[in-house]
């Protein structure tokens, strides 16, 4: 069964001579529980695609269905609820809230929803990511890799059915990178989550059930 369906997705930035076709007719389906890796050159449109699937950006043309819902048909407030419950997003640039501690950052999507975290699961995630010591720190005191791990923990904490990870291991050494990717894969398998991961690392990409390549805003072969 398909949980994500992307149809003829197009997105342009800028206008006139400086126009950039970030997405140029992308077609993609992801089934429930599947682990998909997205690879491609820098600037090929991977982040843009992920943003569309997470409801963070609006396409110029085409549709995105997640769990049977057409995202372009949702109102602002419905989109907000979709973002906090349906997807866990690991941003390329972390996007931690600077005024909240690590713990508060991890729990933020749950707090927004007013729901309580599953304690056991949370502790497990935190310890696997090696964040126990830094729970009360503020983001500006963390290293790039630590920030990335907080972003991953945040994406997992609410146990969303879909996890979208944009280079989740970009700032980590290869060993930690392996661990984190493993954790994501395990979480996906264990809890039957769908995982879409952008990566430049061939080895990590091989962990996935399927690898798709992007080129100039299109899905290649």
């Amino acid at each position: 069964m398909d949980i994500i369906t992307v149809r003829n997705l197009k997105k342009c930035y800028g206008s006139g001579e400086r126009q950039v076709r970030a997405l140029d007719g992308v077609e993609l389906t992801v089934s429930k529980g599947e682990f998909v890796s997205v690879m491609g050159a820098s600037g090929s449109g991977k982040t843009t695609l992920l943003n569309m699937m997470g409801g963070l950006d609006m396409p110029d043309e085409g549709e995105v269905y997640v769990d049977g819902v057409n995202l372009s048909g949702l109102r602002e407030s419905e989109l907000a609820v979709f973002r906090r419950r349906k997807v866990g997003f690991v941003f390329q640039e972390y996007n931690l809230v600077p005024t909240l501690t690590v713990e508060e950052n991890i729990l933020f999507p749950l707090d927004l929803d007013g729901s309580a975290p599953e304690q056991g699961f949370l502790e497990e995630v935190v310890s696997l990511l090696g964040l126990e010591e830094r729970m009360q720190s503020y983001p500006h005191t963390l290293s790039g890799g630590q920030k990335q791990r907080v972003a991953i923990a945040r994406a997992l904490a609410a146990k969303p059915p879909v996890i979208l990870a944009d280079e989740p291991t970009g700032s980590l050494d290869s060993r930690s990178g392996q661990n984190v990717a493993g954790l994501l894969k395990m979480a996906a398998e264990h809890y039957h989550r769908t995982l879409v991961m952008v990566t430049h690392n061939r080895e990590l990409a091989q962990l996935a059930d399927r690898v798709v390549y992007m080129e100039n805003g299109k899905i290649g072969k």
Partner: protein
Amino acid sequence: MLENNNLKICRKLVRREFQFHKARSILLMGAIALVSMLCTFSFSLGFVIRDGLMYGHRIQYGSLSHILYYGLNDSQASALARHGDVKNTVSLRAVGVLSDDVMEYRSVKLAAVSPDWAEATEAVPVHGRMPQADDEIALDELTMQSLAIPPKEGEEVVLRWTPVDGGAERTDTFRLCGWWDSGMGATETCAWITQATARRLCPDAPDSVTLGVTLYRPGDLEAQAKELLYSLGIDGVTYTTNLAYNNARLRRIGTQSMPYYMINIVVAVCGILMVYSIVRISAGRNVRFYGRIKSLGMSPRQIARFMSQQAAYLCLPAVPVGWLLGFGLCIWVSPHVLLGMERHNPALLYFSPLPFVFSGLLTWLVTWAACVMSVRPVSELCPAEAMRFGNDSRMRCKNRQAGRRGRRRRTEISLMALSGFRREKGRTVLSACSLLLALVLLCILWTQYVSADEEKYVKAFSYSDYLIADASAATGLQRYNPWSCSITPEFMEALRRREEVTDVGTIRTMEVPMSADEEERAQAVAFYEGREQDGTVRKETMSGLPDWGTGYEKFRETGEYIGIAVGVDGLALSKALEDSGYAGGAFDAERFDTGKYVVAAGASSTSGISTLPVGSRVEIGGRSFEIMASVSHQSRLVTGSDSREAEFSLSYYMPAWVYEQLFPDSGIRNVTVNIDHNSQKEFEEFLCELTRDSGIQVTMRSDFQKNFRNALLHNYMIPLFVGGVLLLIGMLNYGNALVSSMLVRGKELAVYESLGMTRSQIRRMLVWEGILYGGVQIFIIVPVTSGLTWLWGRWWIAHSASAWCATWRYSLLPMWVALPVLAAAAYVIPQCCFRILMKESVMERLCAV
């Protein structure tokens, strides 16, 4: 999908936001406190003015009650008192009315003490007490002055009064036990005696009560007064309603206090701009912040809540500070706006919590609006775009230039500054415009303000420095009593002995019945039967004064009329002869002093006068005089009123010594004094001491000066205040634009630095930018402001009616005060920004999120 919005998280975010950006928050709170102060001030002042005007109208009405019913019987009065719409009542049972001639312009009732009534009409003794013994009486000061009763407890009071039971006028003797300032009782008040005395004096008093009614809802009093009578089935009762609640008056009060409320619009707009310009410094960061929390699933409702709580959090400490400051300002200013309230501060007397509520709300709204405005892009952008907001592209292309230019020398630094300055063109223009607007407004107002001429003003209102009036002629509501004699020969002696006194004049008047034969009165009759320029018959214009009509008809038919013998000398004489339109005959001082001649005064136009012709003979006090000249009557020559009978009268000026021979026992009505202005203060102290407790009324030169200053304040305070606020906002904008243009470039400067530009070069570049920024604006401001001010000022002096008491003085003080501040800011702010920017390392700034 079910929305589940946890709003508590917002509070946490707000608190953290505050902790993380303390300096900015405190700056914001300062600005908000300022807005709150201005709002509180203008709202409070508006309220105080409204209440003050209301009070003025109530004084005119003479009672605090809403409706007064006259001639009720006991059962009607108690029925009214029990009515459901009636909050409370006060009642008065008068036994008579004072009927002395000099009381004819006022109605003073002799009545048994009614404490409630006394309270409602403010007729409670301030000195002494209410009567307790049989022959005691309490009076108001105007009555005492008219009847020449010295303000001393136990003083004998002889009253002529007419009982209400229809009996004949009688005279009784009382002892004074207390008195009060007439304030509210100018036209109507009471003379209090005990219940027992009242019963003794008028045992058959009819069952007649005057009832003052206070309603729960004082709207449309006329209708309510009628409705009350109708619902109780009472007939044939007269009533009056309190003018203070009259709809037209309420509306007028509304329009009079409106400007003070209107300031709030200016304050609100300026406040939003001010707060906005502070918030805008970090707008980019804020938008990215909102994009971030939005991408994590914050709903629009939560974001709205977050913003409104943020506004509330900033307002919470700032608003009370503003309340205190604003109210303090109001306490300071209100006595100058509401005149004649020396005893109580109007701001404290009319204290109301509403202005505080209003200003609190308005301030919150202003803050909220400014916060919302600064992050407006959030609602239009997708989170993905919002998160990238402000990392603009133009910076990227600058990097390359910086790389090439960084290592060059000084001139290039200034070139770079120029390009930085050019980039901020928009902001510079905006800041220059708001500064210009404020400075032009302020300088124009200031020039008008300093051009106002006190001498011209005082001269226009009074022909002498001091006008001293007999106690019985202190107000127009009193009929002058020539036997009151409160201005004594000793008083005059003391006055004349003062060294600083340069000129003294006295005026004495006496009403005498006179007559004129047919030939003699022809000139006056022709004058009144003639037509004015607009075609109306002159006597018809006097139809509003029935007593005048009666007097005139009698004069026309029989030749009998009231003549007023006026003994004048010195300053007063020159004023009396002052040319104003028509004059007949010629005044000759030498012949006048022989005592055989008088000068006739009457109403006049350019073509005629209402006096007897020059050369006629008149008999006054048994002596015959020839009319030497006729002049126009000067209404401002004397104070107080003549009798109603003398409404139609003709005046005859004669030398003071002649008058004294004719009426040796009559007093002095007015004294005019001019002094050497250098000793004004000493002289006024002397006058105060001399007239204490005598009832003598002195209109001082300093009263006019005070009036002048108050009028000036009244006219210019609000506009100057608004101008000041605008200037403040303009200056803040000016500083802000500079600060924000520099602070947002932390990253850019870090790039320059990482590419090899030294710190001192960066500093120089920033300072150059600041100097350019300030210099260009000053360059525009100085000529435009001085030019416009000069043009407008010349026009105003030449053409505006409000310039009648002005002498052209050109002053650009507000600009000269503002310029050094602007110049200093242009130099200092870049240095401070440089310091702040350099606190963080290059890497920190490069990596800043």
